[in-house]
């Protein structure tokens, strides 16, 4: 074989082996996820990656309008409150699943019943079982959903947790039926799914128009799991990837300086805070049972600097455990500004002039936790950081062993303070204040559908939580996105990116 023929054969082999690139010419957007998608069925995973995918492939009866905070009909053309625990939904005409089958009221009833059934073991069932009573077909376009008691978050729960499935999808009660082969109603349908290699989606041309969710603009979306940020960076630079999310702040900033990459920041619904053992669950005589001590800790932490230097992006300081714009997020609460001298004075008044030592159990953002500990040390309080896995923290919390613990709550990406109730309700091991008034207000707010009354109850509760310094709120997370400059992308207000709204420039 001559040298020339060897070179020709090598060139041919190289050219056939090179992968296809993601670009406008192929009308294919490649999205890099840091974690793998382990199932196509959003009912069986609540990971952020799966929420993004489910938004593309599944629909619900209603969808929240992020601008107004109102719930608008999605698969439902309209809905009517029959009474304070019953809603009638009227389906749009001409709806179809990806396989061409029509969407019927029987499918809606089936979806509710399946999710609520304990034996179905969905990851969403626990959220609706507490209130869901029945789903009944009234006529061939109307379905009636009834709650056991008046429940204000019915629409929220329906919009977030009740993904529509075709009747009989889980044949023989098999919860894994849609793990690999998915049939939904969303603006994109699944073409292929190779666990580990990713998911290929194609725009669903039969998607209904006039709904709140945008029909896809880009023909194909390929989701690729790439665990290493260095590799994602290289793929963005070489044109192998168009979009990624959850990017570390420094990486996102560096990428944003490159001419072929845009960096966009947006808020996340997730907030970071510490729960302080005010009720003395771990130690009835512990220093954190003293209100003055808790207030001192709140004054001792320099939230502004933490947000500016360690959170970055669109992160912001919080004084209450909720997001601005969220229903019930009354921000008119006591704010503990950074004042170490005031903190020392409060500690002295509480009988701890030389400070004290306590264990702070954390599981996220170690550098931030170290910064908090350093701030506390400045006023004489030694916070022994016990940085563990979340599961270890949960175990200790369930056993009532924690003096103080970090939490990062995502509100299931829903704009309602009710989604964080389990830090305030009786019987929850996340509640370390055991304040009967706060418990009562939150309970009452979850049992009334009168929005004004709910808002007033949340306001009272959050105000008292701040006054008593039951928590130590720190910051709201920032979300970093990077994308190639040839695609449009707007950071979402609720932290849930919607790839169906992206288009080529």
């Amino acid at each position, binding site marked *: 074989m001559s040298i020339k023929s060897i070179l020709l054969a090598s060139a041919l082999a190289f050219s056939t082996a*090179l*992968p296809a690139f993601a670009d406008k010419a192929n009308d294919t957007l490649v999205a890099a996820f840091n974690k793998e998608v382990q199932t196509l069925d959003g009912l069986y995973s609540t990971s952020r990656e799966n929420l993004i995918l489910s938004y593309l492939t599944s629909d619900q009866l209603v969808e929240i309008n992020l601008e107004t905070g109102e719930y608008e009909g999605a698969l439902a053309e309209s809905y009517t409150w029959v009474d304070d625990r019953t809603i009638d939904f009227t389906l749009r005409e001409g709806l179809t699943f990806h396989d061409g089958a029509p969407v019927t009221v029987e499918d809606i009833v089936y979806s509710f019943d399946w999710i609520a059934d304990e034996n179905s073991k969905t990851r969403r069932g626990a959220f609706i079982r507490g209130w869901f009573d029945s789903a009944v077909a009234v006529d061939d376009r109307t379905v009636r959903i009834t709650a056991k008691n008046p429940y204000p978050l019915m629409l929220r729960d329906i919009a977030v947790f009740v993904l529509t499935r075709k009747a009989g999808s889980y044949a023989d009660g098999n919860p*894994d039926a849609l793990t690999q082969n998915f049939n939904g109603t969303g603006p994109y349908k699944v073409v292929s799914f190779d666990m*580990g290699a990713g998911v290929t989606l194609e725009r669903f041309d039969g998607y209904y128009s006039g709904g709140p969710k945008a029909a896809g603009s880009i023909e194909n979306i390929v989701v690729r799991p790439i665990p290493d940020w260095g590799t994602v960076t290289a793929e963005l630079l*070489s044109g*192998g990837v168009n979009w990624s999310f959850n990017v570390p702040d420094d990486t996102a900033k560096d990428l944003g300086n490159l001419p072929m990459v845009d960096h966009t920041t947006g808020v996340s619904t997730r907030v970071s805070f510490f729960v302080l053992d005010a009720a003395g669950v771990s130690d009835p005589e512990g220093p954190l049972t003293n209100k003055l001590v808790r207030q001192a800790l709140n004054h001792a932490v320099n939230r502004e600097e933490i947000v500016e230097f360690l959170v970055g992006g669109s992160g912001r300081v919080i004084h209450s455990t909720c997001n601005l714009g969220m229903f019930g997020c009354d921000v008119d609460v006591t704010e503990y500004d950074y004042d170490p001298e005031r903190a020392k004075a409060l500690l002295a008044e509480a009988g701890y002039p030389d400070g004290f030592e306590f264990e702070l159990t954390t599981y996220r953002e170690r550098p931030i936790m170290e910064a908090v500990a350093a701030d506390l040390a400045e006023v004489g309080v030694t916070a022994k950081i016990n940085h563990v896995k979340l599961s270890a923290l*949960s175990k200790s919390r369930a056993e009532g062993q924690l003096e103080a613990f970090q939490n990062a709550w995502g509100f299931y990406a829903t704009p309602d303070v009710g989604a964080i109730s389990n830090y305030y309700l009786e019987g929850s091991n996340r509640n370390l204040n055991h304040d009967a008034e706060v418990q009562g207000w939150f309970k009452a707010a979850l049992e009334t559908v009168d929005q004004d009354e709910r808002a007033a109850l949340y306001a009272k509760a959050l105000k008292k939580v701040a006054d008593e310094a039951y928590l130590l709120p720190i910051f709201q997370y920032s979300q970093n996105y990077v994308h190639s400059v040839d695609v449009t992308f707007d950071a979402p207000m609720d932290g849930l990116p919607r790839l169906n709204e992206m288009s080529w420039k």
Partner: protein
Amino acid sequence: MLKFILKRLALGLAVAFTVSLATFLMLNLAADPASMVAGEDATQEAIEQIRVQYGFDRPLYVRFFEWIGQLVTGDFGDSYYWKQPVFDLLIDRAPVTLTLAAGALTVTVVLGLTLGVLAALKPNGWLDRFALSFGTAAQAVPNFWFGLILIILLGVTFPIFPVSGDSTWMHFVLPCFVLGTSAVPQVLRLTRTGMIEVLGSDYIRTARAKGFRPRQILFRHALRNALLPIVSVITIQIGYKLGGSVITESVFALNGLGRLAYESILGADIPTVQMLVFFFALVFIILSILGDILNAWLDPRMRVE
């Protein structure tokens, strides 16, 4: 010899049992497995439901011996995270890791032997210095860093190879090079030392005196003898290549057993992690036994010891 083999096998079984017990205890005692599976924002009800669903509410020893029982009967259990039988996952992902390991081993052997022989031809010469410097650098550089440098150089600046994925043979070139290079120094030094010793021996001098050509002396007489200790090192390297695939597969987004382990750990998928640790341990144990047997076969003194 038979007694020696049986003794090694018994030792291997004891190690396998210990590894599986340690893995099981670490995964189940260090944290609440139900919370791990349920995730960050899970409600207490969801956590309790998972505890019952996956049997975490049963005593630890019952679960351990149940797992051992399943293992003996060839039932690897089902993955919580991937919703598939663990056996199917292993079978599905193994080809990528085996391809990577085979490619990396080829890189190790070819580079290690070539540089080792070249270095031995003229000890302390410039080629020897170069080979030893290369070996030192290859040993010092971390895999993930070297991988990223190669990606930037040959995937972005000069886009010859794809950056990540495993759909074509081209995708394996960079990861095989990265994984293979890290073991080159070991083979290089052994080859160099062995060759220098053999090339200075009487029978080589005799061969030279008899007028054999240098190439004949080098490959037919010297290298064959110098290779013997390297064989057992290479056997063990196969195990290291499989184990080392965790980082390399993550950097290059290869869909193999290493990345399965990485994702399963993050996803708190106890059955899959348990089985992967057991599998990797078993590979090491088998290769160690093979290495011992090989050495004993080559050197009868070891059998007596």
